[in-house]
């Protein structure tokens, strides 16, 4: 029998009734309670992500707090084979039932079924164990999750892409089918036809239909290309047409997947029957006030939790943090030239036209010297996209610099910026012209900020081509250097070659799969949603610099609201997507969209913010801009973000496959999901208004490649300890790293089995290649230059260590050589 002594306060309460409260039971025995345990299912599997709910009941009901603590027995080990959300359950007074979740963990080891007996261990006073007092679980090994190469192979993945060119009499549709998967597809067929767009989202019957043609079996990485000519003669003038190509879907159990299986390309005929290839200004009434009516929905600029035409709103305060700049209407990007290097730019869009440099934009498809594949009648200085299903570049431009306070639509991050459109993506050529190495046709050398919301799909074995951006950062802006802002990619959930539960945590394809992302002269941007969490699609990696708002899909949760090709029969609104397209009061003419997302939207938010910084301090160098952003980025507190590192047992040793936020040796915080964190505009402006002096980071220098000179090293198979190697760097201790590049060379039966981590002399650890990276699935030759920004500001001097872990059983390989080099300055 146990007794408790009550305090004087609770004695007063006790006098009010005959409760069984501990505190009121002065010198009276507590009412004994019995606790029992139960669970619905006892046969668990390693990959059951939701876990199993475990219930504890106590009888009888008592007016005091009771707690029970779980005890474990069996072959399963806590933390390796399972975890329990609440090892100690506390019952409030009169509460008789409580639960927690038992979560099997996947250690990826092929092993026997584990046993686990969950029982009630330590108990609060006057609590005893009833029947049943324990539950016996089994945790079966998930054979499907064993990481043998054969099980990783999944399927072919066909990707359809169409492109159009025009002559006076025909529209030529070029159709490309890629296999991004790692199996050969079976033969299939494709149908191509032309339809009139009757109303947004609704097509009429086929005006023209081609015979189905065979798409040959495509090996991994292979492509099929063909083209079709549509005659314009029989089409109605003043109408919009959509051509589409459609690949037969393989019914369930098929050996390939098609995403998307139907791809459109639209065009509009003018009143004389010619395809519209230039921007013809629409009539739009100006509002009675200067207010931008859609501004209240622009959560990325000022997040109040508004829904922004989606079903649910975000989290108030999770935005660009530019309240002060908005209220002061200063800076606004005035005098700063920003290039939208993209699919096009609608230079006469009602909400963009005032900010567009009309005679300085450029249409690479309008070159009259071309003999084919161009756009007949297009003007060189009008990068108008004839494809009427939405112009990515026009939407990017609105995020950067839609005109503010003009009584219509919305405003950009930098509402007075000068916009230039270079339709580089419509031609896929001419990087020199589009990125600053040209002073005529177009004059891209006058650009201050280049926005590059694009990237490659899949891994390309090429070294990053940094020729043009090295020139641009050295020579443009009178030697201060242009700023290159690039989207990280949308491949977090893009598990093409295989999927594993850990991909939910670390992502399917890393941002390092696009070689251009590994160029240190860029600002590589990840995407955040309206809750301030990493957007579901945003690619992650050590080459990220910063993150910015972009949103989800605008259906359940907000996407970015921005300009769209104007008119109801053009643009994303012509597809009649959910959102603002359904709300004619908010967008009476179909000039805006509320579904724009991707790192494509995060990059222009950043480019607009950079324009504000350059107006505020025109003397900023490109390195200053990166420094300011890294120094002022904030860490989002969203509960949706990962809150711990991902440690996994490989072989008999623990391996870390994703690191949580780290603070590096120079005091900068870094995370592969976010770079240095979320962009904070007001903080960045305040930073440069403070003691910061432009062009004071010392001369930037590039070290030689510093190479490991030892023997070929075998990568141990399926061993969390991995291969470790080190080399000494003898650079000045006072140097500050601005970027670290790693060059790895070797072979492995499957590169995606490998995690590659670099540790600096300061002890900062950065994962440069995540394990099971789909971007390199199936490759065997390791010859790769990777980038990490995690060491920013640290001294390069000292011992650097590389660690390569092979996480899967069966495949083997070796590291032949590795080297590192540094871009470094001397920071105050």
């Amino acid at each position: 029998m146990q007794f408790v002594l009550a305090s004087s306060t609770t004695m007063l309460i006790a006098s009010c009734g005959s409760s069984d409260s501990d505190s009121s039971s002065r010198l009276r025995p507590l009412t004994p309670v019995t606790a029992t345990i139960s669970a619905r299912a006892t046969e668990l599997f390693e990959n059951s992500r939701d876990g199993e709910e475990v219930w504890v009941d106590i009888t009888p009901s008592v007016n005091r707090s009771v707690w029970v603590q779980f005890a474990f027995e069996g072959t399963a080990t806590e933390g390796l084979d399972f975890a329990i959300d609440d090892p100690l359950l506390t019952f409030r007074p009169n509460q008789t039932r409580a639960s927690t979740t038992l979560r099997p963990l996947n250690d990826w080891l092929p092993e026997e079924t584990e046993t686990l007996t969950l029982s009630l261990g330590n108990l609060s006073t006057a609590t005893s164990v009833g029947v049943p007092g324990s539950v016996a679980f089994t945790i079966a090994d998930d054979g499907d999750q064993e990481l043998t190469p054969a099980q990783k192979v999944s399927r072919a993945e066909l990707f359809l892409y169409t492109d159009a060119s025009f002559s006076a009499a025909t529209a030529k549709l070029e159709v490309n089918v890629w296999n991004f998967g790692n199996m050969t597809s079976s033969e299939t067929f494709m149908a191509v036809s032309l339809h009139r767009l009757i109303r947004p989202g609704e097509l009429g019957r086929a005006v023209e239909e081609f015979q189905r043609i065979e798409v040959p079996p495509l090996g991994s990485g292979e492509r099929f290309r063909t083209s079709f000519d549509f005659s314009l003669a029989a089409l109605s003038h003043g109408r919009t047409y959509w051509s589409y190509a459609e690949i037969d879907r393989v019914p369930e159990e098929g050996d390939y997947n098609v995403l998307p299986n139907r791809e459109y390309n639209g065009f509009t005929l003018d009143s004389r029957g010619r395809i519209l290839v230039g921007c013809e200004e629409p009539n739009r009434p100006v509002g009675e006030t200067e207010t931008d009516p859609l501004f209240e929905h622009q959560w990325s600029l000022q997040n109040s939790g508004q829904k922004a035409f989606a079903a649910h709103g975000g989290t108030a305060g999770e935005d660009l943090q530019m309240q002060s700049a908005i209220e002061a209407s200063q800076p606004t990007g005035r005098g700063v030239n920003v290039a939208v290097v993209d699919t096009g730019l609608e230079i006469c869009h009602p909400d963009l036209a005032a900010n567009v440099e009309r005679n300085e934009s450029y249409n690479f498809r309008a070159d009259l010297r071309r003999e084919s594949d161009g756009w007949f009648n297009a003007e060189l200085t009008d990068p108008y996209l004839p494809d009427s299903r939405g112009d990515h570049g026009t939407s990017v431009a609105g995020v950067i610099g839609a005109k503010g306070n003009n009584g219509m639509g919305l405003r950009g991050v930098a509402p007075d910026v000068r916009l230039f459109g270079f339709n580089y993506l419509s031609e896929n050529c001419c990087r020199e012209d589009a990125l600053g190495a040209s002073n005529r046709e177009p004059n891209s050398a006058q650009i201050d900020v280049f926005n590059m919301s694009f990237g490659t799909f899949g891994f390309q074995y090429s070294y990053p081509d940094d020729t043009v951006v090295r020139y641009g950062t050295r020579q443009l802006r009178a030697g201060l250097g242009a700023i290159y802002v690039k989207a990280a990619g949308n491949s977090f959930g893009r598990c093409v070659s295989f999927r594993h539960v850990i991909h939910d945590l670390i992502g399917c394809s890393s941002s390092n799969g696009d070689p251009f992302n590994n160029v240190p002269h860029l600002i590589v941007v990840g995407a955040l949603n309206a809750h301030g969490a990493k957007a579901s699609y945003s690619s992650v990696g050590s080459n990220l610099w910063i993150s910015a708002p972009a949103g989800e899909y605008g259906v359940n949760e907000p996407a970015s609201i921005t300009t769209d090709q104007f008119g109801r029969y053009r643009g994303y609104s012509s597809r009649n997507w959910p959102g603002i397209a359904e709300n004619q009061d908010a967008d009476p003419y179909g000039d805006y969209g509320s579904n724009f997302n991707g790192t494509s939207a995060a990059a222009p938010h950043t480019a607009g913010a950079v324009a504000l910084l350059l107006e505020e301090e025109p003397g900023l160098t490109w390195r200053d801009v990166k420094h300011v952003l890294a120094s002022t980025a904030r860490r989002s507190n969203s509960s949706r973000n990962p809150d711990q590192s991902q440690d996994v047992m490989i072989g008999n040793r623990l391996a870390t496959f994703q690191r949580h936020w780290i603070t590096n040796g120079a005091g900068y915080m870094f995370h592969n999901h976010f770079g240095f964190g979320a962009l904070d505009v007001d903080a960045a402006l305040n930073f440069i208004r403070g003691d910061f002096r432009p062009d004071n980071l010392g001369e930037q220098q590039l070290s030689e490649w510093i190479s490991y000179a030892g023997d070929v090293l075998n990568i141990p198979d399926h061993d969390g300890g991995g291969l470790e190697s080190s080399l000494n760097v003898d650079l000045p201790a006072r140097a500050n790293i601005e970027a670290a590049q790693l060059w790895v060379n070797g072979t492995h039966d499957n590169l995606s089995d490998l995690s590659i981590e670099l540790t600096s002399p300061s002890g900062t650890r950065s994962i440069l290649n995540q394990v099971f990276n789909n971007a390199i699935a199936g490759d065997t030759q390791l010859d790769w230059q990777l980038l990490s920004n995690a060491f920013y500001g640290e001294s390069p001097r000292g011992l650097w260590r590389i660690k390569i872990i092979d996480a899967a059983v069966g495949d083997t390989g070796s590291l032949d050589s590795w080297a590192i080099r540094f871009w470094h300055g001397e920071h105050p």
Partner: protein
Amino acid sequence: MASASCSTRRFLVVASCLVAVGIGAQVEQVLAVHEADKTFHHMAETVFANGAQKIADAEIRLERRGVAFRYVAKLETQNVGSHWYSRTSRRPWVVYGSHDGRFHELDSRVRVECDSPKTLSALANSPEVIRSKDYGELGYAILWLRPTANPLAVVQELQADPRVRKAVLQFKRPRQFPQ
């Protein structure tokens, strides 16, 4: 003037070869371009004439399926194919790299480093060249070729030109997509 005419003559030689290719004649000439330790080979027209071509340790043949075709290199351990192209579209310029045992699709541009602007001007006046642009700050110029001009043949000619310090093939870049 002398330089310009010389350049034009060289390109005319290439053009005549290509016209022959364009009408389907069997041109047995095997073109190859060497860049550092890499060697790229043109597929001779015999490949298209139901024949095959031996390049290094590979036998190159044409595989047809419906309206599509591709080149296939039969190697000792495996067969390697190019992309599939439709016979209804313009034939792409595909080369075989004997250094890596892979096919590569060429862009209709070549990159050159000339000894003087005058040389570049002369090259630009060639009938095979649509336009040229000098990226002086980057140290090179780009020549845009007519679709009928074989970039590999053009580069081979340019590499033999003493006024041209360097001529480099340009490959189709990985497609960049909005994202």
